[in-house]
């Protein structure tokens, strides 16, 4: 059986109906464990105090904000190449989720930044790129909402997503060029650096990140199912009208 069979709307509805309780349940458990562990059972940082614990929300949502865009890019490419409707609809479904994660990332960042840097907002490259990412999400969502014909909307937003990715990437480097910034380096990375998160925080953080990933999957599955149902309803109405 080819993997593309899961792109059939009917098959997708069946599979996602089966998977949703597991994914969502696991996400709730992991988030519960990770957040409680992180908030109550890790020591305060010697420099940052208890403020550091916002990391359990800040880092995962920031990671998911970027990952969501990559998922939309993949969905858009699959739609343009293979024209699977589920792929286009899942990209549509992921956009508001990604935007929300972006906003959470920015807000928790501001709450973290205020005691640390003494300011809610600074035109730091990382913050600025995130804000710009949010703008790209807004444009993408607005275009989906504005175009009436569903397939045309999918075509246009897919092209926008691909071109937008190039420009978002460029913006990231343009902004780095523009201002070197305050923000610490990436908190989690494969290469061991000196400014890394210590293991005490690392384990619960990893649990939280996994929880956020599953939360994202849950939300995207749910929203994709909604989009599919909305399409079915629209087709039903069109058929009733044509029959009348």
């Amino acid at each position, binding site marked *: 059986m080819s993997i593309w069979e899961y792109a059939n*709307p009917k098959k997708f509805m069946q599979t996602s109906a089966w998977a949703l309780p597991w994914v969502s349940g696991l996400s709730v458990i992991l988030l519960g464990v990770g957040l409680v562990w992180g908030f109550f059972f890790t020591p305060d940082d010697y420099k940052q105090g208890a403020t550091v614990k916002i990391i359990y929300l800040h880092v995962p949502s920031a990671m998911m904000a970027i990952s969501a865009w990559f998922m939309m890019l993949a969905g858009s490419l699959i739609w343009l190449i293979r024209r699977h409707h589920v792929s286009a609809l899942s990209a549509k479904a992921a956009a508001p989720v990604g935007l929300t994660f972006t906003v959470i990332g920015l807000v928790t960042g501001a709450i973290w930044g205020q005691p640390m840097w003494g300011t809610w907002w600074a035109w730091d490259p990382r913050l600025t790129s995130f804000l710009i990412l949010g703008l790209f999400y807004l444009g993408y969502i607005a275009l989906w909402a504005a175009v009436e014909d569903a*397939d045309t909307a999918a075509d246009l937003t897919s092209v926008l997503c691909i071109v937008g990715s190039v420009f978002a990437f460029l913006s990231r480097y343009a902004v780095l060029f523009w201002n070197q910034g305050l923000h610490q380096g990436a908190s989690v990375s494969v290469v061991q650096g000196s400014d890394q998160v210590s293991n005490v925080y690392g384990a619960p953080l990893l649990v939280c990140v996994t929880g956020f990933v599953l939360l994202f999957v849950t939300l995207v599955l749910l929203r994709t199912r909604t989009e599919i149902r909305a*399409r079915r309803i629209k087709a039903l109405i069109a058929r009733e009208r044509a029959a009348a």
Partner: protein
Amino acid sequence: MLTVQDLCVARGGVAVLEGLGFTLSPGKVLILRGPNGAGKTTLLRTLAGLQPALEGQVQADPETVTYSGHADGLKATLTVAENLAFWASVHGQTTIEPAIVAMNLLALRDRRAADVSAGQKRRLGLARLMVTGRKVWLMDEPTVSLDAASVALFGAMLRAHLGQGGAAIVATHIDLGLPEAEVLDLTPFRARQKRQGAFDEAFA
């Protein structure tokens, strides 16, 4: 020049016509008939390659086909001659005189398109077909806002085009004075709704 096989066309994702098949040969004109909303415009746009067919095939060399829709593609601030010259050069043609003469636009040549009447604009839009140098004309309600004399003018232009080995498909309700024209009534080809429960109808 243009062959259609088992064609199904859709408007806004909903099939409107299905099972269409015909062949257009040089010197022939096909008149499309059917009530409003039957899918005449959709069919013509599909034949012109402006929108994809839901099923079936249109076989035609895209370099031979031209289209004339409800809007004439005229710029109000350009003169009649400038408008025609633009479309001529887009199609790699140089002369616009025969078209101006055929649609009786000589007196309006240097008038801005904004300053001519609706019927005159339409004549200009039809003259545009001649300057494309293409063989297959797809026309959507070409006689809208034309008076009787202009309709006769159009009929003569169309006959001359057919005489030179051209062909045309015209969606129209009025008699163009072409007794040899074939008439295709679209009513029998109206798309039947897919049977209930066919799930993927939403994802055509």
